[in-house]
């Protein structure tokens, strides 16, 4: 009981009262936050693990959005898979037979974009070399335990190696001037699929999301009051080498020689084949690109890994990408000033970095 002669003055609560009010106010603020602002869902699609992160949508809308993304990715995979029967394998069969075939406008638009990116990359991103990729055994979910292809077989393909300029698009038809031309949109299809998925999210009025397909992603909006934070994996360990906070609408794509590979007689062979040599690209371990659309970022990361430290600036300039980071086999980092402003290294000792303008 309060028997003190001095009553608590409610108008001037004093220090203890203020403390209590502050605590209760804090309690009220915490309780007023809607539950579960973030949704993170993972599933298998495009032959890899896909993670969809959403911020600020309710459970029902999140479920609908994830379903829309999954449907879209499965549709793209069915159409553009390099070896499972679909639109692309039908086109490849026709091109190999020397036929001219009709294609729908969406297909032609996609191939036109791939052709343009290939041209600007100086054909280092070359989606026309499906035969070479197949020869290496990389057109398989789990490559059989087999040696690398014979040198003579690689040289035979190199002697008449197709590029996207051999693909003829006339009106609504497709044909090829090189019977060896076989399309393999690895290094582009994933980016295209991610772009399509983001479009579907926008159709559903979702403004804050990340679609991450096997490590490559496009992020829109933000995570509430802070930006989405992306960790870039260290190419030599399972940890993170650097972080990037995305702004507005950006894709972050990395091509790495550690993603798919096999070892034969103690030699490691990775899946990014240099169309100039017919062998896996050497010298560069990973190439990371930040760019608005995912399909350009995807093709550019592939081309820049092949270009290596001597030619990457020229290729980046021609492909219109400005935020680029390359890591070579000595863990030396090469990047543009635009990229340097974005990345924060998280390693104990910062790596050796060379920054150069494009």
């Amino acid at each position, binding site marked *: 009981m309060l028997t003190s002669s001095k009553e*608590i003055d409610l108008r001037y609560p*004093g220090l203890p009262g203020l403390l209590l009010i502050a605590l209760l106010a804090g309690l009220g603020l915490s309780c007023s936050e809607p539950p579960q602002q973030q949704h993170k869902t*993972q599933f*298998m699609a495009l032959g890899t693990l896909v993670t969809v992160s959403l911020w600020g949508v309710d459970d029902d809308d999140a479920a609908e959005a994830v379903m829309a993304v999954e449907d879209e990715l499965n549709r793209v995979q069915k159409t553009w898979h390099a070896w499972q029967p679909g639109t692309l394998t039908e086109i490849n069969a026709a091109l190999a037979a020397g036929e001219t075939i009709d294609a729908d406008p969406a297909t032609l638009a996609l191939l036109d974009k791939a052709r343009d990116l290939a041209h600007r990359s100086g054909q280092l991103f070359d989606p026309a070399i499906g035969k070479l990729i197949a020869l290496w055994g990389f057109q398989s979910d789990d490559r059989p335990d087999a040696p690398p292809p014979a040198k003579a077989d690689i040289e035979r393909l190199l002697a008449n190696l197709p590029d996207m300029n051999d693909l003829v698009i006339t009106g609504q038809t497709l044909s090829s001037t090189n019977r060896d031309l076989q399309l393999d949109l690895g290094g582009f299809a994933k980016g295209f699929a991610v772009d399509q998925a983001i479009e579907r999210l926008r159709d559903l009025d979702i403004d804050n999301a990340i679609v*991450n397909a096997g490590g490559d992603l496009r992020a829109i909006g933000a995570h509430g009051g802070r930006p989405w934070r992306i960790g870039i994996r260290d190419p030599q360990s399972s940890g993170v080498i650097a972080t990037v906070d995305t702004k507005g609408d950006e894709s972050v794509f990395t091509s790495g020689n550690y993603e798919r590979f096999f070892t034969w007689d103690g030699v490691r062979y990775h899946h990014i084949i240099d169309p100039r040599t017919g062998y896996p690209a050497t010298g560069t371990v990973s190439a990371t690109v930040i760019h608005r659309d995912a399909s350009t970022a995807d093709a550019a990361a592939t081309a820049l890994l092949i270009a290596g430290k001597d030619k990457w600036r020229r290729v980046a300039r021609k492909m219109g990408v400005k935020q680029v980071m390359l890591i070579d086999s000595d863990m030396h980092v090469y990047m543009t000033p635009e990229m340097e402003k974005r990345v924060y290294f998280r390693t104990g000792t910062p790596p050796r970095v060379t920054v150069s303008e494009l």
Partner: protein
Amino acid sequence: MTRADLVVIGFTLALLPFLYGTFWNRQGPADAALIIDESGREFSIPLDTDQQLHIDGPRGVSILEVRDGQIRFLDSPCRGKQCIHAGWLKESGEFAACLPNRVSIAVNGSEPLYDSINF
């Protein structure tokens, strides 16, 4: 300082453990791994108990090992063994997958360092 002040201070101090428990403990160290199997079934396992898990997939059994707050693929019936090369996962947001056997692991902390991982 009056007795009323003491009552208010006492009440405030008594409230603190409750508030702490309610609003701080959520960010405790109870890290977990989310595992997805071939049927899309998801299950979360804590990383504070060392154990081995056997997950069935289309190719056979993938063996996962949990030790010292980390998790890894110990064995998997694929040819490339890239899931095993991924090594230990410990930082929130890291993941590894055996695509041929359709088993994936993602490490989740209560306070993730990253929203998404690029590689």
